[in-house]
Protein backbone atom coordinates (compact mmCIF):
# COMPACT_ATOMS: atom_id res chain seq x y z
CA UNK A 1 0.00 0.00 0.00
CA UNK A 2 2.73 2.46 0.92
CA UNK A 3 5.12 1.60 -1.90
CA UNK A 4 5.14 4.53 -4.23
CA UNK A 5 5.22 3.60 -7.91
CA UNK A 6 7.85 5.16 -10.21
CA UNK A 7 5.16 7.37 -11.74
CA UNK A 8 4.14 8.65 -8.36
CA UNK A 9 7.75 9.40 -7.46
CA UNK A 10 8.11 11.34 -10.67
CA UNK A 11 5.05 13.42 -9.83
CA UNK A 12 6.38 14.10 -6.33
CA UNK A 13 9.84 15.13 -7.53
CA UNK A 14 8.33 17.26 -10.26
CA UNK A 15 6.01 18.98 -7.79
CA UNK A 16 8.85 19.78 -5.43
CA UNK A 17 11.01 21.07 -8.24
CA UNK A 18 8.23 23.24 -9.66
CA UNK A 19 7.31 24.66 -6.26
CA UNK A 20 10.94 25.37 -5.36
CA UNK A 21 11.75 27.04 -8.66
CA UNK A 22 8.50 29.03 -8.58
CA UNK A 23 9.20 30.31 -5.06
CA UNK A 24 12.87 31.07 -5.67
CA UNK A 25 12.28 32.95 -8.90
CA UNK A 26 9.30 34.83 -7.45
CA UNK A 27 11.22 35.92 -4.35
CA UNK A 28 13.30 38.82 -5.72
CA UNK A 29 10.31 40.18 -7.62
CA UNK A 30 8.18 39.72 -4.52
CA UNK A 31 10.68 41.65 -2.38
CA UNK A 32 10.89 44.48 -4.91
CA UNK A 33 7.13 44.86 -5.31
CA UNK A 34 6.46 44.47 -1.60
CA UNK A 35 9.00 47.23 -0.93
CA UNK A 36 7.42 49.52 -3.52
CA UNK A 37 3.96 48.95 -2.08
CA UNK A 38 5.11 49.37 1.51
CA UNK A 39 7.37 52.36 1.09
CA UNK A 40 6.65 54.35 -2.03
CA UNK A 41 3.81 56.47 -3.25
CA UNK A 42 3.53 56.57 -7.00
CA UNK A 43 0.99 56.92 -9.72
CA UNK A 44 -0.76 53.60 -10.38
CA UNK A 45 0.09 52.09 -7.01
CA UNK A 46 -3.46 50.82 -6.42
CA UNK A 47 -3.44 49.36 -9.90
CA UNK A 48 -0.20 47.49 -9.26
CA UNK A 49 -1.56 46.30 -5.93
CA UNK A 50 -4.71 45.10 -7.71
CA UNK A 51 -2.82 43.27 -10.44
CA UNK A 52 -0.57 41.54 -7.91
CA UNK A 53 -3.59 40.34 -5.96
CA UNK A 54 -5.62 39.35 -8.99
CA UNK A 55 -4.56 35.67 -9.03
CA UNK A 56 -5.89 35.38 -5.49
CA UNK A 57 -9.44 36.28 -6.51
CA UNK A 58 -9.65 35.24 -10.17
CA UNK A 59 -10.77 31.70 -10.95
CA UNK A 60 -7.47 29.80 -11.43
CA UNK A 61 -8.68 28.65 -14.84
CA UNK A 62 -8.87 32.29 -15.90
CA UNK A 63 -5.32 32.94 -14.71
CA UNK A 64 -4.18 29.82 -16.58
CA UNK A 65 -5.91 30.94 -19.71
CA UNK A 66 -4.43 34.42 -19.48
CA UNK A 67 -0.99 32.83 -19.10
CA UNK A 68 -1.70 30.66 -22.12
CA UNK A 69 -2.50 33.61 -24.36
CA UNK A 70 0.43 35.71 -23.15
CA UNK A 71 3.12 33.12 -22.48
CA UNK A 72 2.02 30.42 -24.92
CA UNK A 73 4.10 29.93 -28.04
CA UNK A 74 1.82 32.25 -29.96
CA UNK A 75 1.38 34.65 -27.09
CA UNK A 76 2.83 38.13 -27.19
CA UNK A 77 5.51 37.52 -24.59
CA UNK A 78 5.73 33.76 -25.11
CA UNK A 79 6.47 34.16 -28.82
CA UNK A 80 9.28 36.58 -28.09
CA UNK A 81 10.74 34.37 -25.35
CA UNK A 82 10.46 31.29 -27.58
CA UNK A 83 12.80 33.00 -30.03
CA UNK A 84 15.29 33.30 -27.18
CA UNK A 85 14.89 29.61 -26.42
CA UNK A 86 12.69 30.01 -23.35
CA UNK A 87 9.55 27.95 -23.79
CA UNK A 88 6.78 27.72 -21.23
CA UNK A 89 3.89 25.99 -22.94
CA UNK A 90 3.49 22.33 -22.00
CA UNK A 91 6.79 22.34 -20.12
CA UNK A 92 7.53 22.12 -16.43
CA UNK A 93 8.86 25.67 -16.64
CA UNK A 94 5.37 26.77 -17.58
CA UNK A 95 3.99 24.94 -14.56
CA UNK A 96 6.53 26.80 -12.41
CA UNK A 97 5.43 30.09 -13.98
CA UNK A 98 1.77 29.34 -13.28
CA UNK A 99 2.56 28.30 -9.70
CA UNK A 100 4.74 31.36 -9.16
CA UNK A 101 1.99 33.67 -10.39
CA UNK A 102 -0.59 31.98 -8.18
CA UNK A 103 1.64 32.13 -5.12
CA UNK A 104 2.87 35.66 -5.79
CA UNK A 105 0.11 37.57 -3.97
CA UNK A 106 0.69 35.52 -0.82
CA UNK A 107 4.42 36.13 -1.05
CA UNK A 108 4.08 39.88 -1.59
CA UNK A 109 1.48 40.25 1.15
CA UNK A 110 3.60 38.63 3.83
CA UNK A 111 6.77 40.52 2.88
CA UNK A 112 4.94 43.83 2.56
CA UNK A 113 3.44 43.47 6.02
CA UNK A 114 6.86 42.80 7.51
CA UNK A 115 8.32 45.84 5.73
CA UNK A 116 5.50 47.97 7.10
CA UNK A 117 6.11 47.09 10.73
CA UNK A 118 9.86 47.75 10.64
CA UNK A 119 10.89 50.68 12.80
CA UNK A 120 12.05 53.20 10.21
CA UNK A 121 14.07 54.96 12.88
CA UNK A 122 16.49 52.04 12.84
CA UNK A 123 17.10 52.77 9.16
CA UNK A 124 17.80 56.39 10.05
CA UNK A 125 20.27 55.23 12.67
CA UNK A 126 22.04 53.10 10.07
CA UNK A 127 22.23 56.08 7.72
CA UNK A 128 23.88 58.27 10.37
CA UNK A 129 26.43 55.50 10.86
CA UNK A 130 27.42 55.72 7.23
CA UNK A 131 25.20 53.24 5.41
CA UNK A 132 23.87 54.33 2.05
CA UNK A 133 20.37 53.30 1.02
CA UNK A 134 21.39 49.98 -0.46
CA UNK A 135 23.39 49.02 2.62
CA UNK A 136 20.57 50.14 4.89
CA UNK A 137 18.25 47.85 2.97
CA UNK A 138 20.64 44.90 2.99
CA UNK A 139 21.82 45.15 6.59
CA UNK A 140 18.77 46.48 8.41
CA UNK A 141 15.53 46.33 6.43
CA UNK A 142 15.90 42.89 4.90
CA UNK A 143 17.17 41.07 8.02
CA UNK A 144 14.40 42.63 10.11
CA UNK A 145 11.85 41.49 7.53
CA UNK A 146 13.17 37.93 7.66
CA UNK A 147 10.22 36.36 9.52
CA UNK A 148 7.86 37.83 6.92
CA UNK A 149 10.12 36.70 4.12
CA UNK A 150 10.07 33.14 5.42
CA UNK A 151 6.32 33.17 5.99
CA UNK A 152 5.80 34.48 2.45
CA UNK A 153 8.06 31.86 0.93
CA UNK A 154 6.31 29.04 2.75
CA UNK A 155 2.88 30.30 1.71
CA UNK A 156 4.08 30.64 -1.86
CA UNK A 157 5.66 27.19 -1.79
CA UNK A 158 2.51 25.62 -0.36
CA UNK A 159 0.34 27.38 -2.91
CA UNK A 160 2.66 26.25 -5.70
CA UNK A 161 2.55 22.69 -4.44
CA UNK A 162 -1.22 22.62 -4.41
CA UNK A 163 -1.80 24.62 -7.56
CA UNK A 164 -4.07 22.85 -10.01
CA UNK A 165 -6.44 25.00 -12.07
CA UNK A 166 -4.03 27.50 -13.61
CA UNK A 167 -1.35 24.87 -14.21
CA UNK A 168 -3.58 22.37 -15.94
CA UNK A 169 -5.11 25.11 -18.11
CA UNK A 170 -1.75 26.57 -19.11
CA UNK A 171 0.47 23.50 -19.49
CA UNK A 172 -1.97 20.59 -19.35
CA UNK A 173 -1.39 17.37 -17.41
CA UNK A 174 1.54 15.56 -18.98
CA UNK A 175 3.10 12.80 -16.86
CA UNK A 176 6.77 13.48 -16.28
CA UNK A 177 6.59 17.04 -17.60
CA UNK A 178 3.72 18.96 -16.05
CA UNK A 179 1.90 16.37 -13.96
CA UNK A 180 2.29 17.53 -10.38
CA UNK A 181 0.99 15.73 -7.30
CA UNK A 182 -2.33 17.53 -7.54
CA UNK A 183 -2.74 16.73 -11.21
CA UNK A 184 -1.72 13.12 -10.62
CA UNK A 185 -4.27 12.74 -7.81
CA UNK A 186 -6.89 14.15 -10.11
CA UNK A 187 -5.89 11.70 -12.83
CA UNK A 188 -5.99 8.73 -10.43
CA UNK A 189 -9.48 9.65 -9.33
CA UNK A 190 -10.58 9.51 -12.94
CA UNK A 191 -9.40 5.94 -13.60
CA UNK A 192 -10.80 2.80 -11.97
CA UNK A 193 -8.92 0.99 -9.19
CA UNK A 194 -6.43 3.80 -8.62
CA UNK A 195 -7.81 4.82 -5.25
CA UNK A 196 -4.75 3.50 -3.41
CA UNK A 197 -2.41 5.54 -5.62
CA UNK A 198 -4.50 8.67 -5.10
CA UNK A 199 -4.52 8.09 -1.34
CA UNK A 200 -0.73 7.61 -1.27
CA UNK A 201 -0.19 10.92 -3.02
CA UNK A 202 -2.71 12.61 -0.72
CA UNK A 203 -0.65 11.42 2.25
CA UNK A 204 2.54 12.66 0.61
CA UNK A 205 0.97 16.07 0.01
CA UNK A 206 -0.04 16.28 3.67
CA UNK A 207 3.44 15.30 4.85
CA UNK A 208 5.19 17.84 2.60
CA UNK A 209 2.84 20.64 3.61
CA UNK A 210 3.20 19.87 7.30
CA UNK A 211 6.98 19.70 6.97
CA UNK A 212 7.04 23.08 5.23
CA UNK A 213 4.97 24.60 8.04
CA UNK A 214 7.18 23.14 10.76
CA UNK A 215 10.39 24.26 9.07
CA UNK A 216 9.09 27.78 8.51
CA UNK A 217 7.83 28.00 12.07
CA UNK A 218 11.30 27.01 13.26
CA UNK A 219 12.99 29.63 11.08
CA UNK A 220 10.54 32.35 12.06
CA UNK A 221 10.98 31.53 15.73
CA UNK A 222 14.74 31.71 15.38
CA UNK A 223 14.52 35.03 13.58
CA UNK A 224 12.06 36.29 16.19
CA UNK A 225 14.36 35.25 19.00
CA UNK A 226 17.08 37.43 17.58
CA UNK A 227 14.94 40.47 18.28
CA UNK A 228 14.29 39.69 21.89
CA UNK A 229 17.29 37.89 23.26
CA UNK A 230 20.50 36.16 22.49
Amino acid at each position, binding site marked *: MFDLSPDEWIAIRLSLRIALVATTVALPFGIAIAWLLARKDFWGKSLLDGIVHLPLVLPPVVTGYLLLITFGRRGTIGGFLADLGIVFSFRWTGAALACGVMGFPLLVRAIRLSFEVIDRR*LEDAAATLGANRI*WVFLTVTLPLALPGLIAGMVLCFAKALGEFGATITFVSNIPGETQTISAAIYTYTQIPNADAAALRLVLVAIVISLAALVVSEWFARRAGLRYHG*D
Partner: protein
Amino acid sequence: MIPNSGERFSDRIRLEQSMLAVDVEKRLGDFELAAKFEAAGGVTALFGPSGAGKSTLVNLIAGLLAPDRGRIALDDHVLFDSATGINLPPHRRRIGYVFQEGRLFPHLTVAQNLDYGRWMQKLPADTAETERVVSLLDIGHLLRRRPGRLSGGERQRVAMGRALLMKPLLLLLDEPLASLDRARKLEILPYLARLRDEAKIPMIYVSHQAGEIVRIASQVVRIEDGRVVADGGLELLDAERKEMVF
Protein backbone atom coordinates in the same frame (compact mmCIF):
# COMPACT_ATOMS: atom_id res chain seq x y z
CA MET B 1 38.79 68.37 7.50
CA ILE B 2 37.96 64.70 7.29
CA PRO B 3 40.60 62.99 9.41
CA ASN B 4 42.41 60.03 7.99
CA SER B 5 41.00 56.81 9.26
CA GLY B 6 43.95 55.69 11.35
CA GLU B 7 43.73 58.75 13.54
CA ARG B 8 42.87 58.41 17.23
CA PHE B 9 40.60 60.64 19.23
CA SER B 10 43.64 61.77 21.17
CA ASP B 11 45.29 62.93 17.94
CA ARG B 12 42.38 65.11 17.15
CA ILE B 13 43.02 68.00 19.41
CA ARG B 14 42.77 70.17 16.36
CA LEU B 15 39.10 69.28 16.21
CA GLU B 16 38.53 70.72 19.65
CA GLN B 17 38.46 74.08 18.04
CA SER B 18 36.12 72.92 15.31
CA MET B 19 33.02 74.95 14.91
CA LEU B 20 29.52 73.98 13.97
CA ALA B 21 27.61 76.81 12.36
CA VAL B 22 23.87 76.42 11.97
CA ASP B 23 21.46 78.86 10.41
CA VAL B 24 18.31 77.11 9.28
CA GLU B 25 14.61 77.44 8.70
CA LYS B 26 12.21 74.55 8.61
CA ARG B 27 8.45 74.38 8.57
CA LEU B 28 6.73 71.22 9.76
CA GLY B 29 2.97 71.59 9.63
CA ASP B 30 2.09 74.44 11.99
CA PHE B 31 5.47 74.41 13.63
CA GLU B 32 8.12 76.74 12.38
CA LEU B 33 11.76 76.48 13.28
CA ALA B 34 14.17 79.31 12.58
CA ALA B 35 17.39 78.81 14.48
CA LYS B 36 20.83 80.30 14.25
CA PHE B 37 23.71 79.40 16.50
CA GLU B 38 27.33 78.40 16.55
CA ALA B 39 28.86 75.70 18.65
CA ALA B 40 32.59 75.80 19.27
CA GLY B 41 34.23 72.61 20.48
CA GLY B 42 33.39 71.04 23.82
CA VAL B 43 29.81 70.24 24.70
CA THR B 44 27.06 72.56 23.58
CA ALA B 45 23.66 71.98 25.13
CA LEU B 46 20.46 72.63 23.24
CA PHE B 47 18.17 73.42 26.11
CA GLY B 48 14.45 74.09 26.10
CA PRO B 49 11.03 72.65 26.84
CA SER B 50 9.62 69.63 25.02
CA GLY B 51 8.28 70.59 21.62
CA ALA B 52 10.63 73.56 21.29
CA GLY B 53 12.20 72.05 18.18
CA LYS B 54 15.42 70.68 19.65
CA SER B 55 15.10 67.23 18.09
CA THR B 56 14.11 68.74 14.76
CA LEU B 57 17.22 70.87 14.87
CA VAL B 58 19.42 67.88 15.62
CA ASN B 59 17.81 65.89 12.80
CA LEU B 60 18.57 68.78 10.44
CA ILE B 61 22.22 68.69 11.50
CA ALA B 62 22.37 64.91 11.07
CA GLY B 63 20.77 65.17 7.64
CA LEU B 64 17.71 63.09 8.53
CA LEU B 65 15.61 66.15 7.69
CA ALA B 66 16.39 68.83 5.14
CA PRO B 67 15.95 72.50 6.06
CA ASP B 68 13.74 74.63 3.84
CA ARG B 69 16.43 77.29 3.80
CA GLY B 70 19.77 77.94 5.37
CA ARG B 71 23.24 76.61 5.86
CA ILE B 72 24.91 74.06 8.11
CA ALA B 73 28.68 73.78 8.21
CA LEU B 74 31.25 72.06 10.32
CA ASP B 75 34.30 74.29 9.97
CA ASP B 76 34.75 74.67 6.22
CA HIS B 77 32.94 71.42 5.56
CA VAL B 78 29.51 72.42 4.23
CA LEU B 79 26.79 69.90 5.10
CA PHE B 80 23.84 71.85 3.80
CA ASP B 81 23.50 75.07 1.89
CA SER B 82 20.26 76.01 0.18
CA ALA B 83 22.03 78.81 -1.70
CA THR B 84 24.40 76.45 -3.49
CA GLY B 85 22.12 73.39 -3.41
CA ILE B 86 24.42 71.33 -1.22
CA ASN B 87 22.73 68.69 0.88
CA LEU B 88 24.99 65.88 2.01
CA PRO B 89 22.99 62.72 2.79
CA PRO B 90 23.32 61.51 6.41
CA HIS B 91 25.61 58.64 5.48
CA ARG B 92 28.18 61.08 4.13
CA ARG B 93 28.11 63.57 7.00
CA ARG B 94 30.05 61.47 9.46
CA ILE B 95 28.10 62.75 12.41
CA GLY B 96 27.56 60.34 15.28
CA TYR B 97 24.03 60.33 16.66
CA VAL B 98 22.94 58.90 20.01
CA PHE B 99 19.17 58.67 19.96
CA GLN B 100 16.84 58.96 22.91
CA GLU B 101 15.72 55.35 22.46
CA GLY B 102 19.15 54.01 21.58
CA ARG B 103 18.00 52.51 18.29
CA LEU B 104 20.39 49.60 18.49
CA PHE B 105 19.94 47.05 15.73
CA PRO B 106 17.94 44.26 17.36
CA HIS B 107 19.18 41.57 14.97
CA LEU B 108 22.87 42.25 15.66
CA THR B 109 24.90 41.53 18.77
CA VAL B 110 26.35 44.38 20.80
CA ALA B 111 29.77 43.75 19.20
CA GLN B 112 28.24 43.90 15.72
CA ASN B 113 26.33 47.05 16.62
CA LEU B 114 29.57 48.66 17.77
CA ASP B 115 31.31 47.61 14.58
CA TYR B 116 28.54 48.74 12.24
CA GLY B 117 29.73 52.31 11.72
CA ARG B 118 33.33 51.34 11.15
CA TRP B 119 32.21 48.76 8.64
CA MET B 120 29.95 51.20 6.78
CA GLN B 121 32.61 53.92 6.79
CA LYS B 122 35.03 51.31 5.42
CA LEU B 123 37.54 52.13 8.15
CA PRO B 124 40.20 49.54 8.94
CA ALA B 125 39.70 47.49 12.11
CA ASP B 126 41.16 49.30 15.09
CA THR B 127 41.16 46.88 18.00
CA ALA B 128 42.94 49.26 20.33
CA GLU B 129 40.35 51.96 19.74
CA THR B 130 37.48 49.51 20.15
CA GLU B 131 38.95 48.30 23.42
CA ARG B 132 39.39 51.85 24.61
CA VAL B 133 35.78 52.77 23.92
CA VAL B 134 34.50 49.48 25.32
CA SER B 135 36.36 50.03 28.57
CA LEU B 136 35.46 53.72 28.67
CA LEU B 137 31.80 52.72 28.65
CA ASP B 138 32.17 49.47 30.60
CA ILE B 139 30.38 47.35 28.06
CA GLY B 140 32.92 44.55 27.66
CA HIS B 141 30.70 41.99 29.35
CA LEU B 142 27.81 42.77 26.98
CA LEU B 143 29.53 42.25 23.66
CA ARG B 144 27.92 38.92 22.80
CA ARG B 145 24.41 39.86 23.84
CA ARG B 146 21.67 41.19 21.64
CA PRO B 147 20.05 44.54 22.46
CA GLY B 148 16.85 42.81 23.59
CA ARG B 149 18.74 41.54 26.64
CA LEU B 150 20.16 44.88 27.72
CA SER B 151 18.86 47.22 30.40
CA GLY B 152 17.98 50.77 29.41
CA GLY B 153 21.25 52.12 30.78
CA GLU B 154 23.33 49.47 29.07
CA ARG B 155 21.55 50.14 25.81
CA GLN B 156 22.40 53.83 25.95
CA ARG B 157 26.04 53.09 26.72
CA VAL B 158 26.25 50.77 23.72
CA ALA B 159 24.54 53.43 21.60
CA MET B 160 27.21 55.92 22.66
CA GLY B 161 29.94 53.43 21.87
CA ARG B 162 28.43 52.71 18.47
CA ALA B 163 28.35 56.41 17.61
CA LEU B 164 31.91 56.94 18.88
CA LEU B 165 33.42 54.04 16.97
CA MET B 166 32.38 55.46 13.61
CA LYS B 167 34.97 58.16 14.43
CA PRO B 168 32.57 61.04 13.98
CA LEU B 169 33.50 64.65 13.41
CA LEU B 170 30.65 65.68 15.68
CA LEU B 171 28.53 63.77 18.17
CA LEU B 172 24.82 64.48 18.58
CA LEU B 173 23.11 63.27 21.74
CA ASP B 174 19.34 63.70 21.69
CA GLU B 175 18.01 63.36 25.24
CA PRO B 176 20.08 60.23 25.77
CA LEU B 177 18.90 59.96 29.37
CA ALA B 178 15.24 60.83 28.88
CA SER B 179 14.02 57.25 28.64
CA LEU B 180 15.82 56.23 31.85
CA ASP B 181 14.72 56.38 35.46
CA ARG B 182 16.66 58.49 37.94
CA ALA B 183 18.96 55.70 39.10
CA ARG B 184 19.90 54.84 35.52
CA LYS B 185 20.50 58.50 34.72
CA LEU B 186 22.94 58.74 37.58
CA GLU B 187 24.57 55.59 36.26
CA ILE B 188 25.09 57.08 32.80
CA LEU B 189 26.12 60.62 33.66
CA PRO B 190 29.68 59.73 34.69
CA TYR B 191 30.15 57.95 31.35
CA LEU B 192 28.97 61.04 29.51
CA ALA B 193 31.45 63.14 31.44
CA ARG B 194 34.22 60.68 30.59
CA LEU B 195 33.19 60.77 26.98
CA ARG B 196 33.48 64.56 27.00
CA ASP B 197 36.89 64.51 28.65
CA GLU B 198 38.48 61.67 26.72
CA ALA B 199 36.90 61.53 23.30
CA LYS B 200 37.65 65.14 22.36
CA ILE B 201 34.84 65.26 19.87
CA PRO B 202 32.60 68.30 19.77
CA MET B 203 29.18 67.32 21.08
CA ILE B 204 25.68 68.70 20.82
CA TYR B 205 23.71 67.61 23.85
CA VAL B 206 19.94 67.99 23.73
CA SER B 207 18.01 68.08 26.97
CA HIS B 208 15.18 69.77 28.79
CA GLN B 209 16.82 68.98 32.14
CA ALA B 210 19.05 71.74 33.45
CA GLY B 211 20.47 69.27 35.96
CA GLU B 212 21.98 67.12 33.23
CA ILE B 213 23.31 70.04 31.30
CA VAL B 214 25.29 71.64 34.12
CA ARG B 215 27.04 68.31 34.62
CA ILE B 216 28.06 67.97 30.98
CA ALA B 217 27.98 71.12 28.91
CA SER B 218 30.05 74.27 28.68
CA GLN B 219 27.89 76.23 26.27
CA VAL B 220 24.10 76.56 26.34
CA VAL B 221 21.81 77.40 23.45
CA ARG B 222 18.33 78.00 24.76
CA ILE B 223 15.49 77.19 22.39
CA GLU B 224 11.86 78.06 22.79
CA ASP B 225 9.10 77.65 20.26
CA GLY B 226 11.46 77.10 17.36
CA ARG B 227 13.67 80.11 18.10
CA VAL B 228 17.03 80.56 19.77
CA VAL B 229 16.22 82.83 22.70
CA ALA B 230 19.58 82.85 24.41
CA ASP B 231 23.10 81.63 23.75
CA GLY B 232 25.92 81.65 26.26
CA GLY B 233 27.52 79.89 29.21
CA LEU B 234 26.06 77.82 32.02
CA GLU B 235 24.93 80.99 33.80
CA LEU B 236 21.93 80.87 31.44
CA LEU B 237 20.62 78.06 33.61
CA ASP B 238 20.78 79.98 36.88
CA ALA B 239 17.01 80.28 37.04
CA GLU B 240 16.58 76.54 36.63
CA ARG B 241 19.32 75.60 39.04
CA LYS B 242 17.05 76.23 42.00
CA GLU B 243 14.63 73.56 40.91
CA MET B 244 17.22 71.21 39.57
CA VAL B 245 16.46 67.53 39.42
CA PHE B 246 19.87 66.23 40.31
